[in-house]
């Protein structure tokens, strides 16, 4: 569309840029190595959908979606102001909390645009509480599965997937937060393998999955090493100060695994030789490492693995809050409930019935376990920060040992550190 149009000069964050008149701002920015993130934008869909609102920029002091802006002479756009960066991050965070995004078990993990934006923006945990909506997965279509828990209502599939006869396949249903995408089974069945595959590809998240081949290239993970902006954050070679044991008073650390798998603790052990350095300067109090079951002194840092699925978890977590100066949620379970939270969108009764009363392997004496010595199961799995105040978050399933080491070192001794892009993951 822009071809043959005259050249104009626009100003992006104070920098003059030449481009063709009428060219879409997102494309202009991209060509000039300015990354404006977007989840719904396609360059061939005109006018752009403008649904995700992640690309918000400011033109003449007015907020507008970047994908709605076309280049014209003298156009001045603010793109990378701290305010706009924060708003974009907030919109991405809204999407994470609006649906059920459990990266470690998502087929699209590593290739998901929403996840990649989370990495790009350095989202450790969303500022909004999780909603854990109850959505229905649709297995009925011929080629695809609609994993609606992950749908972000970007409308790409609705607007850009058609049969050979030009009939749409996907339609928006309902309204507001109930909005979801439904499939016209009859038309969907007419899609070729390639067309269905393309539907999966254009889905920015893991909602549209192809039954025939879900993981076409095992191990291929687009955004693991290289950020979506293709700009690796500069690795400042900030030298990590050596901490000499003689200089510092030993700090006290406590750790616990709540509703987790101990994977994060294994990861802590993965610090390898660093662990030896660490025990020179810290001592462990209450922790599975020491087998100390109760706090014997106040601790500087508490590392929490796992979310809260029982009353016992809550009690332990509260005890940690009382006994530690700083609390850190370590790993996906502590941050958003993760795998244990898969039951969150079902009533507890349904979960327990399925597990204890209605499975094929039970005998006639089956009952839901309960005893005064047994912890009580909560109605859902709570992220730790919804129970107590959490000061820091280390995402990952599990986070790498190095990552944990650096954060702990920084918290305790104020050492500088940088988490390289490839170490910051949600899975």
């Amino acid at each position, binding site marked *: 569309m822009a071809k043959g149009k005259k050249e104009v000069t626009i100003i992006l964050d104070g920098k003059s840029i030449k481009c063709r008149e009428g060219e879409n701002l997102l494309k202009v920015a991209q060509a000039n190595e300015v990354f404006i993130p977007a989840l719904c934008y396609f360059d061939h869909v005109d*006018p*752009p959908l403008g*649904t*995700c*609102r*992640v690309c*918000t920029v400011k033109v003449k002091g007015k*907020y507008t*979606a970047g994908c*709605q802006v076309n280049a014209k002479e003298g156009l001045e756009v603010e793109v990378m102001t701290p305010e706009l960066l924060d*708003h974009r991050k*907030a*919109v991405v965070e*809204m*999407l994470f*909390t*609006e649906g059920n995004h459990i990266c470690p078990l998502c087929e699209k993990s590593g290739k998901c645009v929403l996840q990649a934006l989370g990495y790009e923006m350095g989202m450790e945990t969303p*500022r*909004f*509480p999780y909603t854990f909506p109850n959505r229905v997965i649709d297995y009925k279509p011929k080629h695809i599965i609609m994993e609606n828990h992950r749908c*972000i*209502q970007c*409308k790409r599939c609705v607007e850009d997937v058609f049969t050979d006869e030009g*009939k*749409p396949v996907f*339609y*928006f*249903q*309902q*309204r*507001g*937060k*109930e*909005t979801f995408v*439904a*499939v*016209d089974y009859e*038309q969907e069945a007419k899609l070729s393998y390639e067309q269905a595959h393309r539907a999966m590809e254009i889905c920015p998240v893991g909602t549209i999955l192809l039954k025939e081949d879900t993981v076409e290239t095992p191990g291929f993970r687009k955004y693991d090493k290289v950020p979506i902006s293709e700009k690796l954050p500069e690795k400042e070679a900030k030298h990590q100060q050596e901490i000499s044991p003689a200089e510092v008073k030993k700090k006290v650390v406590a750790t616990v695994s709540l509703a987790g798998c101990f994977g994060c603790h294994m990861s802590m052990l993965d610090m390898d030789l660093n662990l030896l350095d660490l025990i020179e300067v810290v001592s462990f109090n209450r922790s599975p490492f020491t087998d100390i079951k109760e706090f014997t002194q106040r601790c500087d840092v508490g590392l929490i693995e796992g979310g809260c699925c029982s*009353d016992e978890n*809550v009690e332990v977590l*509260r005890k940690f*809050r009382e006994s530690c100066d700083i609390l850190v949620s370590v790993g996906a379970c502590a941050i958003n409930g993760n795998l244990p939270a898969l039951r969150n969108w079902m009533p*507890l*009764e349904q979960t*327990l019935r399925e597990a204890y009363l209605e499975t094929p392997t039970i005998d006639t004496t089956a009952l*839901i376990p*309960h*005893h*005064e010595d047994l912890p*009580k*199961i*909560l*109605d*859902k799995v*709570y992220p730790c*920060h*919804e*129970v*107590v*105040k959490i000061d820091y978050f280390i995402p990952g399933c599990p986070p790498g040992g190095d990552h944990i080491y650096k954060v702990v070192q920084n918290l305790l001794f104020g050492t500088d550190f940088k988490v390289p892009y490839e170490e910051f993951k949600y899975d």
Partner: protein
Amino acid sequence: MKIKERTYLLDRLWELQNARGYLGDADILQAAAEFGISPVDVEGVTGFYHFFHRQPTGKYTIYLNNSILSWFHGFDRVKAAFEKETGAAIGGTDPTGTFGFFETSCIGLSDREPAALINFHPFTKLTPQKVKRIINGLKDGKSPAELADTVEEKVQYKPEEDKTILLRDFEPGKAIEKLKEYSPDQVVDMIKEAGLSGRGGAFFPTGMKWEFARKAKGTVKYIVCNADEGEPGTFKDRALLNLLPGLLIEGMIVAGYAVGATEGIIYLRAEYTWLLPKLNAALQDYRQKGYLGQSIKGLGKYKFDIRVQLGAGAYICGEETALLESLEGKRGEPRLKNVFPTDKGFLGKPTVINNVETFCAAARIIELGVEKFKGLGTEKSTGTKLLSIAGDCKRPGLYEIEWGIRLGELLDLCGAEDTKYIQMSGPSGELISVEERERVISLEDIRCGGSVMIFNKQRDLFTILQNFSRFFTYESCGLCTPCRAGNPQLLHMIERMMQGKAAPGDVEKALQWSAIVKHNSRCGLGQTAPNSLEQAIQKFPHLFKKKLVRDDNFNREFSLEKATEAYNILTHGKG
């Protein structure tokens, strides 16, 4: 079978629903076949509008208004009475399928709350006793039409005779008689000169809009009247439709003549279905008098006719581009703002969309002359404005004011007592403290679209905010992230504060989240939804401070008792 035009999809769905009481699977398939579209597409449309039902809704379908004024004037009692008398819990039907009982967003009867619609007939000033009488009447075989209340408009105030524009005596045909003295270009100039601006609340210059449409290429153009008055608290368009349907028709003829359009459509919200007979009668009357149809008396070959399109329940359809989508038989999702409806509107043709009051004012400008209109009001806002005043005041009803009136004067006029808050222009408008009495209602200061809700000192600010936030959460179209996902988060935050469980820093969070929803949303709904919350925090910070807990080490929202309740019930007595 001839494939029907999609623009008639809503009409057809209404027919099918009225026949059965709801839309069954067969109805969906039938509509899909008739219109040559996918059944999933049809369901996408029905699911968007809250008056379309896929489950039975009873022989008598009751919609009780849940706006804040209804809440404050007895919603709970009336709801309980309906549930008791009908045997239907809210959101469903009674076991016999006789009654269906639902709550709904503001139905435009704020001056007589609590109000409900039964089979779309109005029932006002409800009390438990009155509910009992109504339901007994229905059980005795009386029809909702027989039992319904007559909505008599209370004109509480208008300026002295020569300063009244809208609510003065109306002589049918007068504006049209005058119209023949002017060319279409002159009419556009007159409206521009008079300084008329959009009375729906956006205040876009009407003359400019008409000029765009007049200059737009194409021979087919449309005039659309936005009678989808959904802003809670407002009922001024209802009053105009009720009192002066002819004036609206003449305004639309004026617009059609100026722009060169031959078809007019009134998009009437389903809540005003009870006004439809009156409106149709007025249209018929105008046709008979020769003012509508193949030629219009005195205007030579110019032809123009008007039809009414009924909505189906969606606040967002008051947004003009969502309204256009709805007119085209689609989901009412707002369009992008890069193309004006005056260029590409209804079915892609140049379209003028104006509010009921705007058309009425345009007709008066032609009738009374530009000078008269221009001589009234303030520099930026000429003429007069209709306000619908309701809430804690002695004289709720319709007010025609000259722009420039002080807020304090208005409060005195309507007999507001013990006032604390005034919500101007509805939940999306401005929350005003009674301290601001000196402020002026005009485009320079308080731009009031029509809704004025008055709250006295006994009213809880948080309840007001909660009601507004629920409204926006429910009415968001769902198309863009900040509005769809952000409004529920704001609602959650307000409720967290109400329960006294908010942590230090939550007020700042609420402000930050408000800004995010406001600045990133796609249309006016999301852009204005956080207004009241933001203003409440700015104007009444002490009320918010009171709601915060001191220590935020433990999240007060989490309750171990509540979290273990389900487990205790499941294993009750066995532990």
